[in-house]
């Protein structure tokens, strides 16, 4: 009963150790281990137990059916819906498979698709030094990152260096989502930072301009802005100016995200104690130095969840380009449904598009968690 490791501490028993000599004992097994975890977290109370059982039941009903439809009972080959139905009663992935090129490249000329692939590979090269700070030769790599938008533009559109010209209305599918999403993400952050700082400025004109811009952007739906970009902008620019529709969309999506970004970053800025500004000032740092070295690193870190939230929303909003007649991955999917050979397979299309977006957004979300962990310095 009285084991030597944990002597029984009944009242009245003389303390076996001198004051200050007491050793650290291991925690008793009743407060740790998997059994303890299951007991407290899954079956801690009557309600808890009922909810656990209900959840298990629902998962049991949903998951096997889903796996069945998606994988086990699915048809992967065939040239029409009839082929699929002859093989299996589940999903008809042959539909997606035969049109995969269209889903990825849109109407980009087949012979030139290597340019899209190269641009995508270079995107990862350009992103690496931004996302991870232990990349070798990071300084030089960042120069490439800065030049990347130009390189990507030349590669995709062409018309110089012997590359065949490809009009931007031939862009489509997944590549269109990525182009708009990455551009919006890359430019909305710096613009948002400037707007947030401008909104806090002591200069009244600058402040009013920033506030007006942010409030306007937040007060108008993105679809409206895209329509304005597509239809009305030609009234405002001098006649004869040919302003590519894709560029107009990129600008609108970027400005739209910047407005939201500015408010997210302002939230971060407001969380920085006044003492940080004072310490930076009292050292003699200039405004931009104290912003870049002291305030923004802390404010952006606080704002990471909100920033990534805005990025994800922007990325999903890229599907709205359908309203001005450009076919992104969702648009291609919907137009494919009109094919008489494949009619009625809308579930497959939407599931495919959903999986694509989920993977992209989940990666962004995971990266933001990694970043938060990395930047945590114990304060």
């Amino acid at each position, binding site marked *: 009963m009285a084991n030597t490791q944990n002597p029984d501490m009944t009242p009245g028993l003389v303390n076996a150790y001198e004051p200050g000599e007491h050793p650290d004992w291991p925690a008793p097994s009743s407060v740790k281990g998997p059994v303890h975890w299951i007991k407290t977290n899954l079956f801690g109370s009557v309600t808890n137990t009922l909810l656990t059982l209900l959840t298990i039941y629902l998962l049991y009903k949903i998951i096997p059916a889903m796996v069945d439809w998606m994988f086990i009972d699915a048809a992967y080959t065939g040239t029409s819906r009839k082929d699929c139905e002859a093989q299996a009663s589940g999903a008809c992935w042959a539909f997606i498979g035969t049109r995969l090129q269209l889903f990825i490249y849109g109407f980009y000329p087949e012979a030139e698709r290597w340019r899209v692939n190269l641009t995508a590979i270079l995107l990862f090269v350009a992103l690496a030094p931004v996302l991870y700070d232990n990349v070798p030769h990071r300084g030089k790599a960042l120069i490439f990152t800065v030049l990347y938008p130009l390189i990507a533009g030349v590669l995709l559109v062409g018309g110089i260096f012997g590359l065949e010209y490809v009009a931007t209305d031939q862009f489509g599918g997944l590549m269109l989502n990525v182009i708009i999403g990455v551009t919006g993400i890359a430019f909305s952050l710096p613009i948002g930072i400037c707007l947030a700082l401008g909104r806090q400025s002591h200069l009244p004109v600058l402040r009013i301009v920033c506030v007006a811009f942010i409030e306007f952007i937040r007060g108008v739906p993105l679809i409206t802005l895209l329509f304005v970009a597509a239809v009305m902008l030609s009234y405002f620019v001098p006649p004869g100016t040919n302003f590519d529709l894709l560029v107009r969309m990129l600008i609108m999506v970027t400005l739209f995200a910047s407005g939201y970004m500015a408010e997210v970053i302002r939230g971060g800025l407001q969380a920085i104690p006044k003492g940080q500004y004072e310490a*930076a000032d009292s050292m003699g740092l200039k405004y931009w130095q104290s912003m870049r070295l002291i305030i923004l690193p802390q404010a952006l870190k606080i704002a990471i969840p909100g920033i990534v939230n805005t990025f994800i929303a922007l990325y999903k909003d890229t599907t709205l380009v359908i309203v001005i007649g450009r076919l992104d991955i969702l648009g291609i999917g919907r137009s494919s449904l009109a094919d008489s050979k494949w009619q009625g397979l809308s579930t497959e299309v939407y599931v495919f598009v959903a999986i694509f977006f989920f993977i992209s957004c989940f990666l962004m979300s995971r990266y933001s968690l990694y970043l938060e962990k990395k930047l945590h310095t114990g304060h």
Partner: protein
Amino acid sequence: MAETQTAATAGAIGSSKGSGDIIEIHGMHKWYGDFHVLKDINLSVKAKERIVICGPSGSGKSTLIRCINRLEEHQKGDILVNGIELTNDLKNIDLIRREVGMVFQHFNLFPHLTVLENCTLGPIWVRQTPKKEAEAIAMEYLERVKIPEQALKFPGQLSGGQQQRVAIARSLCMSPKIMLFDEPTSALDPEMIKEVLDTMIELADTGMTMLCVTHEMGFAKTVADRVIFMDGGEIIEQNEPHSFFDNPQHERTQLFLSQILAH
């Protein structure tokens, strides 16, 4: 206006005006909105002088020293620091700030930077010191405040007393001519006050010009050349510590001292 401009420029290139004291404040007033916080402040501080400013809370003592490095703006009167006139001219403000170090009640270390980076930031960006050299200087000062082994930790991993000593080292890395202390021990646990005061006493022994807002009367007795008592935004009384504590002249000083020394 033109006159002040000239004076400021002259100050900036080194030829000081006035008596040659390192800080000169003449007829300085400050308002927060309608509230008159500082009333007709006149104060001269000689180089290497160590001054303790005390007084009840809300008496304007913190505001006074925060005016010296322009964390607060004064509305009337003149402030000359190191011969440079403090005006709205950002160039003068920057020149003054690099000569004036400040230690805050809540340390205000930069939590996203290591202790070493906290110390090298000012020298590297304001004084354009090469990184290697700045790090050597920083280590020297961290040794002086007795925490060189914490150099690579983040401020959040240190105790309050250690953080405040880092804050002192950070200010010293800029090799300032003047150090301002704004209640440096008020946010500390009792057992940590001593280590910070010891650091400040050592600093005083090196001949640094110091202005300390503090309630540590023991510290005032040990190191101060002069103790200033403020109340209601005015300097009520100033004297060398012996006479100040043993023989306070003004009724309000007597009341204040009896309150803080009673227990």
